[in-house]
């Protein structure tokens, strides 16, 4: 697995600090998961274990909630995250083409793969970021790129990569 290096190193003190701050009763489940995900970009097993050990939240409860909501992800994430909006306006204006072109640019070819093999970018579909008049659009980290087509998405990605010092591998054409 090329993505293994993306596994986060979880610091127990940090997890404990969130528990101290947010609380450890059942209603803290979602905020705790959000704190973990904000820090690591996904929910590392180690952090989940720490929450189960140190709060009233059971494993059943924690994983039940984590797998219910679209926000949470169990797999490690690339160094940068690209969210492609798939709201209604984006869908009818060609959001699918953004996915095609970005996957091509990042050499992500398997359907169940969402991160470039170099670990640079992870591609994620999101429901709607609420900027429908700029459709179709994508968000790279915190930066929004609106009114783009597939070609413009590739260009924006290349520009972003230059800015943050990520190297993009030359796209390889795939057979159908």
């Amino acid at each position, binding site marked *: 697995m090329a993505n293994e290096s993306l596994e986060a190193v979880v610091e127990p003190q940090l997890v404990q600090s969130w528990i101290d701050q947010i609380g450890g009763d*059942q209603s803290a489940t979602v905020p705790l998961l959000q704190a973990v995900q904000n820090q690591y970009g996904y929910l590392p097993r180690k952090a989940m274990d720490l929450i189960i050990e140190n709060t009233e939240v059971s494993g059943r409860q924690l994983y039940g909630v984590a797998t219910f*909501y679209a926000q949470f992800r169990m797999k490690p994430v690339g160094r940068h995250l690209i969210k492609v909006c798939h709201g209604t306006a984006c869908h*009818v204006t060609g959001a699918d*083409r953004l996915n095609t072109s970005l996957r091509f640019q990042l050499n992500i070819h398997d359907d169940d793969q969402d991160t470039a093999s170099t670990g640079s970018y992870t591609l994620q579909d999101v429901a709607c970021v609420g900027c429908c*008049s*700029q459709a179709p659009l994508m968000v790279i980290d915190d930066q929004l790129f609106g009114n783009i087509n597939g070609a413009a998405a590739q260009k924006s990605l290349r520009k972003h990569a230059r800015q943050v010092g990520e190297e993009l591998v030359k796209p390889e054409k795939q057979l159908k």
Partner: protein
Amino acid sequence: MNAQGLEIIVGEGTCGIAAGSKEVMEAFSEAIPGANIRSVSCLGMCHMEVITEIKDAKGDSYTYGNVDKKTVAKIVKYHTEGGDFPEENVISRPDDLENENSKYIKGQTRIALRNVGELDPTSLEQSKARDGYKAISMILSSGMSQDDVINEVKISGIRGRGGAGAPASMKWTFAKNAPGAQKYLILNGDEGDPGAFMDRSLLEGDPHNVIEGMLIAAYAIGATKGYAYIRAEYPLALKNFQTAMDDAMEANLLGDNILGSDMSFHIKIKEGAGAFVCGEETALMASIEGERGMPNLRPPYPAIKGLFGMPTNVNNVETLSNIPWIINNGGPAYSAYGTDDSKGTKVFALAGAIKRGGLVEVPMGTTIRQVLYDIGGGSSSKYPIKAVQLGGPSGGVIPAELFDTPIEYAAINATGAIMGSGGMIVMDEKTCMVDLAKFFMEFNHLESCGKCTFCRIGTLRIQEILSRITDGKGTMEDIDTLDVLSRQVMTSSLCALGGTAPNPVLTTLKYFKDEYLAHIKDQRCPAAVCKSLISHVVIQADCTGCSLCDAACPTDAITGQKKVVGSYSIDMDKCINCSMCVEVCKPDCILVE
């Protein structure tokens, strides 16, 4: 250069930032060092972003749209040393001369949105200058009773703007009368309709108004604790709301003994974690309690047994945004707008194939045609508008022949669509209605919480049938099955998600059956969208041999000789119909059919 007394105000909502407001701010600071530049929230004219208002020394105000680095130079020149008036960027000017751009704002009646884009959302002072917290202060100082407040809201006739449309006063009465040691008020800002963004804009652009709406509702029902449930996907809304809450706390407008009265009210922000079903109030409460966001059977209604088992009232952001205005201006002033069935105004998020898109607030009873053409300016493409989608994944499509339908709950429901939260997606002839129905069913299936079998599995079966049809493998029997299955899902689901999920299928079947038939009988997608039924062909007579299509093609389907006119062609066996080549082709010589 005379930049004296020039005030520059840049719209910085999420859309403005996306369109490059930061660059515009920088360009202004570079052009006029030390200039008085500030940012406000989004005016809702998303199609004209970035928007900038210039106030000159005389106090005259000019608003410009589509501002970028180049136009900044033009605008600065005009206002400092004189020069050509940047005519094509003007939205409004002091002489109030009407132009194409100004129709967008002038066609609206802004009550919920009255301050959005007018003030710095993080400034309590500016909010107060525009009557912020005036209504709650008046209620607390005049000794207006809970019933008086509820009665005023009852007179206004406002119905819930989140989708279901229950009269706000009715919900408040139930919650007020319910016995309970602790009552809760919840702000529902889990705007899940992928195509609606008025709640985002209200939270980003006028958070103090939303907080005041919560205060009034809390007073009316007797709640001392509140939750603001806001989508995590709206970072700016969360930030501005938090700032507003902190400032309100500081000013004793929130917290204990508000403004020296007996009233106490504390708000906690809960970030929604991305589940459409959490817009349903019982699911939303489960989510706050730390559970999977699954709806529960009603009754008991939340007003009786809600959050943590206590009486709870849940109101949508837009509903609460109207409340301070209603108290300040009186219920009758609000009910003067609208129709017998639906009072007041409603905000719509206009997007898709529309020339002027963004947020539009109009009185109920305005026709769809007026919104689309008078305010929205009609189609943004060379193709005519064929339908609008109203109500998101729970709503339906309304075809062009019904555009004279007035926007009110009953009339919209009669078309098969629903008012919903107000997402209005405009579609031209390049949208395939079967594909659209499939898109919504995929969404509804993914977002189904899984509690009810028909919703969980029925939505999947519907989606499978639709995929079969878009693949050109559908049968006439499928159409009957879709109809039967849709009705079964609607009647056998606990909450509104399942209860309305098949609406997009039923309405497209009702109004665009010909498109279903074209897919099934002729294996043809009239809008040239469905990938299995289209092909890409180079019109070689127009090909300039630029090779851009080859570079863009992800599958090596395109071959030709660089710089040789007319040499490129597409191998259909390798082509995945992704249309990447169409995007880059300069002479527009790739035909999709």
